[in-house]
């Protein structure tokens, strides 16, 4: 199972193999805010960010 997470309101991270509970516990331990998003939102955002980030 894959999960897609928006961290600290800005960065997107994907996780595979961990439960949602394990992801949440790990991010809370690091004092990171998190919001689970759909794969389509994740992909769309990354494509946009990549276009504006690559040198």
């Amino acid at each position, binding site marked *: 199972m894959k999960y897609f997470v928006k961290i600290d309101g*800005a*960065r*997107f*991270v*994907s*996780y*595979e*193999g*961990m*439960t949602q509970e*394990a*992801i949440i*516990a*790990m991010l809370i*331990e*690091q004092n990171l805010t998190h919001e689970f998003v759909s794969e389509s939102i994740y992909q769309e*955002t*990354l*494509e*946009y*960010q*990549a*276009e*504006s*980030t*690559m*040198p």
Partner: protein
Amino acid sequence: MSSISAGTTSTTGLVATSDTTGSLLLKTGASATTAVTIDTSQAVTLTGTITPSQTAGIVGTTTNNNVNAGSVGEVISSSVAVGSAVSLTTATTAVSGKTITSISLTAGDWDVFGIVGINNTSTTNFTSSAGGISTTNDTLNSLYEETIRFAYGAAGLVPNNVFSFAIPTTRVSIASTTTYYLIGYASFSASTATAFGRITARRIR
């Protein structure tokens, strides 16, 4: 060869019986020691070693599925794409890196590996870069033999594009759930740098 009946011992010491939970027990030897247990969920527990045919081996999956959590072959990973990279600040010590992402591993024996990428602008001047896997947030492993490090000389290097490098496999043997961090590191002047990558763990034993 002698036949056996449920709950009775054969002339060779082999006995098939059940316990109070409904598990099937196969016992062997003069003292009728349990060699095989099959529980009501069809899980099989063997007391001794397993020796498959040297040529037939153990059959792997034949399609694109995932093994259950806790089983050999389990995969846990996390990725940060270049478009979502973490901002780096120039390193102030030999280990002062930045966490790119992290994974939480349950108790067991794992192989952990990854890739670290460093993004930059046309003027970012690097004097060093590094990456690795660590159990400490924002900190490279202090063992140089377990991190990947590059030095670019006193004048530095302006790569003017993304560069990336592999983090080799590291064995992780843990008795309790532990977080592993993928760390990026760079010493640079002029402009900015960011880090992205992926960390993957496979339960090997």
